[in-house]
């Protein structure tokens, strides 16, 4: 709005006598600022600075005062006096940097917020070799835990806002991109659905944490909401071309410890029988060196930003080519984004059109190679002469075919497999915001959007490769399409009522969202082409219809009340249970605006927030859980009557009464600022109680058409504290230092799990591990955190060695039975922290991001599975390597359930280090350039003995290692 009115000012006739010129720069990095409004105080005379930050203006005389204004910066006033050149530097306004925050179906000034909302804009994003948007803010926000799923190209992350609210339903937050709530379930052929969104196009993240903020999203808000906006052009912009490139080199940070070839020989010669000794080879192979590589990646982005008369625009294209450190893994992404933000009818109708598209080409490596590399005999060579592609393989001596029980040659797994996919995703919306001509306080907003994706992939393994020898090769393909549609319409009325010193802002709306997914899976039988292993097709749909409203009431500018109400209807539930009502209320008191603080030189900001809200959860993975359905079987699950085979029809278990899961949240928060906001921060305390948990529980046997069903039972409590602090110790034109830290405490406890109260109920086993079939290591139990480890207490001898198979008899019945397992620690941290700092000194800039978590434990499944002599002594016709854990434990057989393998995985990680140099203006000021060197995953401090202490879920089982990445970034603006 400000820019529009400024534009109009330009047409005003000028009668001034003095011509003043100058350049406006930013104190932050000294760059020239385009689009700063320069206004002669008390008049309507003014101009914008051009792309070089320059302006020219006529003033009446030397008494004229120039007012320099730019969004997000402190306004400066300069008296002209006898100067004809007035150069100024504008200082960042810490308080108003993110002054306007997106809150769902609208915006709010940060100072007027009543809920726990955090906004992060692009200047605070993490830099480097990032291929997926959520990594831009990892470690930056209190209460938000982002754990990447390993180092594979495009790998996704587990995002948890204030811990999980659910047991079996999704714990992922709702993500809204440019007004379109996006489908965050997987896309076939993409490691991560968010990897189809180019992080370079993102302008801001707005994270809604408490229910008073999220309840406007009702049934999908229990796990928080992340609202993402993309970069856009601005009215008055001249065409600017920006080129950004990042070149990266990724390397392993270490390796999973295994016995060396010599150590392995020693064990085999000491413990093996003659036949096993005879299997030893003469080579000396480090299999992890064989499968990993140094990986080079590059990311190029070009954007054009500008505006025609009424049409600001931004067009960008990007190309990412990322190689993974596991050989053959690769992802290429070509993306394009177009944003148009025109306005019409004297700015009464504003239009916001965003189109984003990305095309992804993946080559997925067989990650089973990592486990194979750990287990493979290091005395064997990589290559030999044979009919299985020339890779050394363990053969069955009776048949000469690959031994079905032995690990496969790790390199063979990688090189013989061609697993590729092409994925297309487009997200787009058109938002029309109309301010009524006869009643400008009333706005109508219509937003229509879509999120469509299509993923195809093929998986080929030749028939002679050991990996698929038994099934005669692999020739499989899959195809998925998703069409998700969104329509939102709301009316907003906002008015100041001076008579009672109040402001009222009311909004009411309607939303419709529809999700359709189709899948085809074909697995051809290469040896008998007439048959297929699998040939299946599935299609499913669900729809959400919602009505919502919000009332913001402000009294005296410092007492703020917010009420929201949303009614959601989900097609996933029966007509009786379909509709859910999600209210919230919040109150904020801007203490700083009270008379006793208004002029304080110490306290520059102080606000207290109280919030309450109810949110829901309906993402239950099945679209028809309440309907009695019959599903046909595939061709390979038929039954024979006579000489005919019949595809069967199976009645599905169902819960006709299934309904919403509900989470109640209470939040108390304080926002504060001291010393002109050189020190700012906030503290929040919250509790979240989820009831009617959507849990999978055993049905009373015989009472349903299944043995376990998803139904509403159980309660979970979360309690936590979040602290955010920001310091600006130095803030000068050429020297600026900012430091931010955040701290989160979260504790979750299951308070009920059964329909019929039963204190003897041991709980629900979860956490499947490698080794054996169907073994689990965790349990949900009432009174304990979710997924606590469920293990035996190991007994040690006087030398401190664990005694194999001997555990503490917890229940004292004289025997060691599964009832002697106890609940020990949790994979979720009680505390996690993030810290970042940014220093700007002249043209140099430097920064780092630290992340840590405390109190999270890990089950070392690699050691429990591979750290046993059984790998040698029980092997027939093949040998398997061991981790050095076996030298310490001396275990002959697997002791999967011993607490010996539960380790403290607290860690502190230097996640990101940047060093930048601003080359300033080149080519007569037409080109500005900046180079940045970035290091990611530089250092990890931990007691955990495995490769990486940060694994979502707490079970370490051959994670794709996160590499250390060194990058060089170049940014050119023309």
């Amino acid at each position: 709005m400000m820019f529009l009115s400024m534009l109009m000012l330009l047409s005003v006739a000028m009668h001034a006598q003095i011509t003043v010129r100058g350049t406006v720069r930013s104190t932050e990095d000294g760059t020239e600022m385009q689009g700063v409004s320069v206004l002669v105080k008390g008049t309507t005379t003014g101009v914008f600075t051009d792309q070089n930050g320059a302006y020219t203006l006529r003033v009446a005389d030397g008494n004229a005062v120039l007012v320099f204004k730019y969004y997000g910066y402190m306004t400066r006033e300069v008296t002209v006096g006898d100067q004809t050149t007035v150069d100024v530097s504008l200082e960042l306004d810490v308080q108003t940097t993110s002054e306007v925050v997106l809150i769902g179906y609208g915006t709010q000034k940060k100072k007027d917020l009543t809920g726990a909302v955090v906004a992060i804009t692009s200047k605070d994003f993490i830099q480097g070799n990032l291929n997926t948007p959520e990594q831009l803010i990892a470690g930056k926000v209190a209460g938000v835990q982002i754990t990447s799923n390993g180092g594979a190209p495009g790998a996704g992350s587990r995002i948890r806002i204030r811990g999980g609210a659910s047991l079996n339903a999704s714990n992922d937050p709702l993500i809204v991109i440019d007004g379109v709530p996006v489908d965050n379930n997987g896309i076939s052929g993409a490691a991560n659905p968010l990897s189809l969104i180019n992080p370079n196009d993102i302008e801001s993240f707005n994270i809604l944490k408490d229910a008073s903020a999220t309840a406007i999203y009702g049934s999908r808000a229990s796990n928080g909401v992340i609202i993402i906006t993309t970069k856009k052009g601005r009215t008055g912009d001249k065409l600017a071309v920006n080129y950004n490139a990042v070149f990266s080199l990724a390397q392993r940070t270490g390796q999973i410890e295994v016995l060396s070839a010599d150590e392995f020989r020693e064990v085999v010669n000491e413990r093996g029988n003659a036949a096993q000794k005879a299997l030893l080879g003469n080579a000396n192979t480090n299999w992890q060196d064989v499968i990993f590589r140094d990986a080079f990646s590059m990311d190029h982005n070009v954007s054009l930003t500008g505006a025609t008369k009424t049409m600001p625009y931004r067009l960008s294209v990007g190309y990412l080519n990322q190689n993974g450190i596991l050989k053959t893994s690769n992802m290429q992404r070509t993306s394009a984004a177009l944003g148009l933000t025109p306005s019409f009818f004297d700015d009464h109708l504003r239009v916001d059109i965003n189109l984003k598209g990305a095309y992804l080409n993946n080559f997925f490596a067989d990650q089973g190679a990592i486990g194979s590399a750990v287990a493979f005999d290091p005395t064997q060579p990589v290559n030999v002469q044979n009919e299985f592609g020339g890779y050394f393989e363990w053969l069955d001596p009776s048949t000469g075919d690959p031994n079905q029980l032995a690990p496969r040659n790790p390199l063979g797994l990688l090189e013989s497999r061609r697993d590729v996919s092409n994925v297309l995703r487009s997200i787009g919306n058109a938002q029309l915001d109309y301010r009524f001509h006869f009643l400008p306080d009333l706005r109508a907003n219509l937003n229509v959007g879509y999120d469509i994706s299509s993923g195809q992939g093929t998986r080929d393994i030749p028939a002679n490769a050991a990996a698929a020898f038994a099934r005669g090769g692999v020739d499989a393909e899959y195809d998925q399409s998703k069409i998700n549609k969104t329509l939102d319409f709301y009316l907003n009325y906002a008015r100041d009522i001076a008579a009672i010193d109040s402001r009222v802002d009311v909004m009411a709306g309607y939303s419709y969202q529809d999700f359709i997914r189709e899948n085809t899976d074909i697995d051809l039988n290469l040896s008998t082409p007439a048959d297929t292993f699998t040939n299946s097709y599935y299609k499913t749909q669900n729809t959400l219809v919602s009505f919502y409203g919000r009332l913001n009431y402000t009294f005296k500018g410092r007492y703020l009340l917010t009420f929201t109400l949303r009614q959601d209807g989900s097609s996933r539930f029966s007509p009786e249970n379909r509709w859910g009502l999600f209210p919230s209320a919040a109150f904020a008191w801007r203490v700083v605006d009270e008379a006793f603080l208004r002029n304080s030189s110490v306290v520059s900001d102080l606000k207290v927030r109280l919030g309450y809200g109810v949110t829901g959860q309906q993402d239950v993975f099945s679209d028809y859980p309440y309907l009695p359905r019959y599903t046909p079987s595939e061709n390979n699950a038929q039954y024979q009557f006579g000489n005919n085979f019949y595809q069967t029809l199976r009645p599905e278990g169902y819960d006709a009464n299934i309904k919403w899961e509900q989470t109640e949240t209470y939040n108390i928060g304080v926002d504060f600022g001291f010393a002109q906001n050189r020190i700012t921060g906030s503290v929040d305390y919250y509790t979240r109680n989820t009831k009617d948990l959507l849990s999978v529980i055993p049905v009373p046997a015989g009472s349903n058409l299944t043995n376990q069903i998803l139904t509403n039972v159980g309660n979970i409590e979360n309690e936590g504290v979040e602290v955010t602090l920001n310091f600006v110790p130095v803030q000068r034109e050429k020297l600026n230092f900012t430091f931010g830290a955040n701290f989160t405490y979260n504790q979750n406890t299951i308070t009920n799990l059964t329909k019929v109260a039963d204190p003897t109920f041991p709980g629900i086993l979860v956490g499947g591990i490698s080794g054996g079939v169907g073994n689990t290591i965790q349990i949900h139990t009432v009174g304990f955190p979710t997924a606590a480890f469920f293990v035996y207490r190991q007994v040690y001898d006087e030398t401190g060695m664990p005694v194999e198979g001997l555990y503490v008899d917890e229940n004292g019945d004289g025997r060691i039975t599964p009832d002697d397992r106890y609940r020990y620690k949790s994979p979720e941290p009680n505390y996690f922290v993030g810290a970042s700092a940014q220093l700007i000194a002249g043209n140099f800039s430097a920064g780092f991001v630290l992340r840590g978590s405390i109190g999270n434990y890990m089950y070392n499944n690699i050691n429990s599975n591979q750290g046993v002599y059984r790998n040698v002594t029980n092997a027939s016709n093949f040998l398997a390597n061991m981790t050095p854990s076996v030298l310490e434990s001396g275990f002959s057989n697997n002791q999967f359930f011993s607490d010996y393998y539960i380790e403290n995985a607290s860690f502190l990680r230097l996640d990101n280090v940047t060093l930048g140099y601003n080359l300033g203006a080149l080519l007569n000021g037409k080109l500005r350039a900046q180079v940045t060197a970035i290091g990611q995953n530089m250092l990890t401090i931990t007691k955990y003995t495995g490769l990486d202490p940060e694994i979502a879920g707490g079970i370490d089982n051959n994670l794709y290692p996160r590499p250390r990445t060194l990058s060089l970034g170049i940014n050119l603006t023309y």
Partner: protein
Amino acid sequence: MKSLFHKVCTIGVLAGGMFVASSCIGALDRVPFIEVTSATVYADANNYKLILAKLYAGLAVSGQQGPAGRPDISGIDEGFSTYLRQYWKAQELPTDEAVIGWNDGSLPDYHDMDWTSSNEFITAMYNRIYYQIGLCNEYIRETTDEKLAERGFDAAVVENIKLYRAEARFLRALSYWHALDMFGNVPFVTELDAVGSFLPERTTRGELFAYIESELKAIEAELAAPRSNEYGRADKAAAWMLLAKLYLNAEVYTGQAKYTEAVTECKKVIDAGFTLDAEYRTLFLTDNDQSDEIIFPVTFDGNRTKTWGGMTFLVHAPVGGSMNPAEFGINGGWSGLRTTKNLVNKFPAVGGGTQLVSPNEGNTANYTKIYVPGAHQGWDPATAPTLTSAAGDRTFEGYLWFEAGTEFKFTDGPAWDVNYGDNGADGTLEPGGANLKVTDAGFYKLNVNLNDLLVTVEKTSWGLIGSATADQWNSDQDMTYDAAEQAWVITAPLTVGEIKFRSNDAWSLNYGDGGADGILERDGANIAIPNAGTYLIKLYLDKPDYTYSIEIPSFDTRAMFYTQGQNLEIADIFAFTDGYAITKYRNVSSTGVVGSDSEGNFPDTDFPMFRLGDVYLMYAEAVLRGGAGGSLADALGYVNQLRRRAYGDNSGDLTELTLDIVLDERSRELYWEAHRRTDLIRFGKFTSDSYLWPWKGGIAPGRGVEAFRSLFPIPASDLVANPNLQQNPGY
């Protein structure tokens, strides 16, 4: 004009919004694209058979996608979740018939017999039973006469559906029998209970027994006549068989014996026209769908009925060690299942049958020799038989058969250059001397000493003596000379013990086998006979390393053990090579054709759930236990029919029956067919210390366990879900 435009705009926006809002609420009534709802599925007469197929498939596969992907039950690895695999494990792993070498969860607890109520495999078995019952209830509920009438099908269609319904009731009775047998006092749900989260009532063993009996009696008339239904579907004989099993175990279930009823039902099955297959082994091969013996199978197919449980488990899991997977028609073994020595020792002889000891060729070719040309072979030294000197000290020995009056000489080489005779038949050799001569026909031992030029010629006649023979160490069992075989042979019944070979009924010349290497030594060690049986024994003295063979010409072909590289004793349950492997189930046909799955994963072999061989033994047992309406003579005849098939002749015939013999015969005939746990309980040998096997109770020599373990515990998960239930005593 402008304001009118604005007003139209405004109204348009508002009206449009309202229209969209109201029209989209109906969009919440989404119905599946692929699945059908129960509202429509029963309107189509064709669907009834497909749902019936699911009830049968519930015994075989794990879900709607083979081999895995869309499971029926959850909470356990899908491969482990199939009905047959769980039933087999529950019936076999806690017994002397099977051990499994896998460290999966609490799987080892089955054989250790220390399971708890949270054992996931027992829970999966229980869940499978009630899943099956739930599906059957739903089907029976949807196929009542009233509902069929409402749907307006024509009479022929209705008749078909009624037959399906009777089969669904049979399948429900089968699963309830499993619940009765394994879990005792269990939840009780029928078609009268609608689907939903109600709490089923607990029933007692006695009530459940009566219910199953009444159900089977009720459908007896409705089911298809024996052997008239489509293959794979239950008929009257299946119901009779189940009734017979119910009655045979009635004393265990209710404390009240019903052996007469058991005899009656067995006779109905026996009279229904089933016949024993000619060969035992073919019952467990891919073409066992052609069997006339199998009464009720669970069917599998390499391409169309795929699962990681069922027969895939039973064919793969017993293969390991040095076994060749190709011989089983599969791509690899899973190195899991073996058996204990208790089962092995129930067979008189083991080892694939025929050759217990093979002739050992020794070092014959390396010995120095002289030649014995003569009338017996045409006086040609080049082709003459030889005597050899094992020590190389120019003293030679050998055995030869001479006809009466045969003359001969010795030559030092295959030519006449240097030859010896015995002038004067005085035992002293002379170069170029006169021919030697025997008067009688016989098998002669010849010893020549060329250092001192001495010769002895001794006629021998051989026999068998020892503790394993009929007259112990007292007298010889004479052997006869087989000229074609050039060996002394005897076929003799032997008991467990020792033997030696002896000449001329005297100890002066006897052979034993020191080192048990198949080479005989004079005055050597006794030869052990580990098992009783009828043996064919051959003594080879025609070559200088004297050897012998012990064969079992007639043996029990049901002893399908793989012993090479396997230890009979089980030192470590997790080591596949401890315990003999079993080769019963294979994915090859009776003619050796490999099954249809080109991957070699999924067998075509069907599981013989009920078969005539079982009925014969049940009949015999019921009669022995006092059931009326049968005869001991018939019982013996039926058992001997099984034994004649096993032996190929009447050499294995029994002359009398006792209950213990019947139990042992059941394990010989029916091992690894999921009967053993029930059988041992009926004979009081499951938990007690009166019968032990390796690692029973978790210790190597075995020990008795608590009597309450004859029932499995009600799973903890169901006790929590259903407060109407009570835990079985002891748990």
